[in-house]
């Protein structure tokens, strides 16, 4: 196997008595599209939250490009190159579409309060790059026409694209998409898989959690299956579809 961008070893998370993620070992290959699937409550989103540092792991380790992540705050993980989207989108409703993406450039710019307060040349220079880059990501997801609109005035499908653009604006090496296809129609889903391919072609590794099996099987180059917090299988889409353990997890096992 080639080099992995993200690795977890014995990663666990317990909420009181409930073990949401149970000793997961996984390796995500650089430059690939990896899907994490599993029934509801399998711990997929918890796994995302552990990787992005929303809450600390109960035990186990996470390595990003070989470096341990455990002690890093959520915001420093973004600076290191891990971006994400959320199941419930979480756009900034008090900003325009373009401003949402410009905010995504935060970790790639430096100027602070002092430079902005007095409009120092550094602020001007960086602001120019920020808006140019933001336009680039805006056009990548095809929302160029809506730049000045309020972010929440977009329909859900476009809001999800905007959330992806905002994540890409942090110029990540790895992007985690939490159910990007949920609530989209067939046309929007097709656009979404195109976009995910384009992201991969930009050299960004992608991990997605998704319930839509045709979408997953169509784009994922590697599939990891979770059930009740444990990794039960991994492989290519074709291998997974034939795995008896996966079928059992989705359809329910016969009790003996």
């Amino acid at each position, binding site marked *: 196997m080639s080099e992995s961008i993200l690795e977890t070893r014995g990663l666990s998370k317990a909420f009181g008595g409930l073990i949401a993620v149970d000793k997961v070992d996984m390796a995500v290959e650089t430059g690939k599209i990896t899907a994490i699937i599993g029934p509801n409550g399998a711990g997929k989103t918890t796994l995302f939250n552990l990787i992005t540092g929303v809450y600390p792991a109960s035990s186990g380790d996470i390595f990003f490009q070989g470096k341990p992540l455990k002690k890093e705050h*959520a915001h420093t993980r973004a600076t290191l190159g891990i971006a994400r989207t959320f199941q419930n989108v*979480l756009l900034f409703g008090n*900003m325009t579409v373009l401003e949402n993406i410009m905010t995504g450039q935060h970790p790639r710019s430096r100027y602070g309060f002092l430079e902005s307060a007095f409009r120092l040349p550094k602020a001007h220079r960086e602001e120019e790059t920020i808006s140019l880059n933001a336009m680039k990501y805006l056009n990548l997801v095809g929302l160029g026409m809506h730049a000045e609109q309020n972010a929440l005035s977009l329909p859900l499908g476009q809001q999800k694209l905007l959330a992806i653009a905002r994540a890409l604006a942090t110029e990540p090496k790895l992007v985690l998409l939490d159910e990007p296809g949920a609530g989209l129609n067939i046309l929007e889903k097709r656009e979404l898989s195109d976009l995910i391919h384009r992201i991969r072609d930009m050299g960004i590794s992608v991990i997605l959690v998704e319930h839509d099996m045709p979408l997953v099987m169509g784009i994922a180059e590697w599939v990891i299956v979770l059930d009740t917090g444990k990794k039960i299988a991994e492989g290519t889409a074709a291998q997974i579809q034939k795995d008896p353990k996966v079928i059992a997890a989705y359809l329910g096992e016969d009790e003996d």
Partner: protein
Amino acid sequence: MLERVKRKWYYSVIVSLLVLLIVIPFDWFPGHYTTIMVLIGINTMVTVGLCLLLGYTGQVSLGHAAFYGIGAYFSAVLSKTYHLNPWLAMLIAAIATGAFAYVIGYPIFRLKGNYLAVATLALGVIVYILFGKLAPGGPDGIAGIPNLSIGGFAFDTWFKRYFLVWGFCLVVLLISQNIVNSRSGRALRAIHGSEAAAESIGINVDRFKVKIFVLSCVYASLAGSLLAHSMAHISPSSFDPMVSVIVVVMAVMGGLASIWGAVFGAGIVVMLKHELLLGFGELEIIIYGLILMLVMIFMPEGLFVWLKSSYVKLKELYIRWRLGQIRRGAET
């Protein structure tokens, strides 16, 4: 395009403010209006700070009078008791207030929403009581605070103080406006929008909250110093917890997420307090409550934004009427 319209608004507001400011203090106004204008300027500075914190970052503070008071007391004590140059006293006051805000900022911003509101309210009450018990002068306060002066030029009349205060106020307004439209300003608004999303794109939420809190408290401190050196007398009652609430009323009236709205909010409330509601005594507070409710219901974005959108609507109507005229002209 939109950007240009925004900028046009921005400059026309500044220009009209400047014109107003230069015209207002002249002789044909009754003398005490100059005093009121000074108070409006001072209150605007406190309000702008709260707008940055509450309107843009979404973090409530119901204890801003504490920082306003700390600035005033530091200035008063240092310049009167220790005979420091008032400017130096003002600077030390601002630094001390900023440091205090920084130290309590980290623990206090672990709280959110209602809990934060209660904690800041408690802070306001504690500091107010300390002013009465520990600060020199006790409940009577400090009198005979020296004026600010540059070289031999002392700001010893209200007319002169008027320019001093509004000079400070304009700088504060411009700085705040610049911050709002910058990388830091977007980070603040992002925190208001969604803290989880803000963290996920690399914004250090805790640090930004503390930073804007410190800035906001430094504004309050500067305003407090200006108050002390202008009034020559301060007492704990100028910084009681009610004052914090009135600052919130000013911010809401002007529009929470509107820097220039703060001028309107402070202007209206100070006018009410010192002119229209003079005879009302205790009833004053009921009227503020009423105003707060009415503004929240009918102009949730504040007076300033409401005026702005009414202007746009009027302009639209005018354009439609003109278009109709032209069309009719073409037909005949």
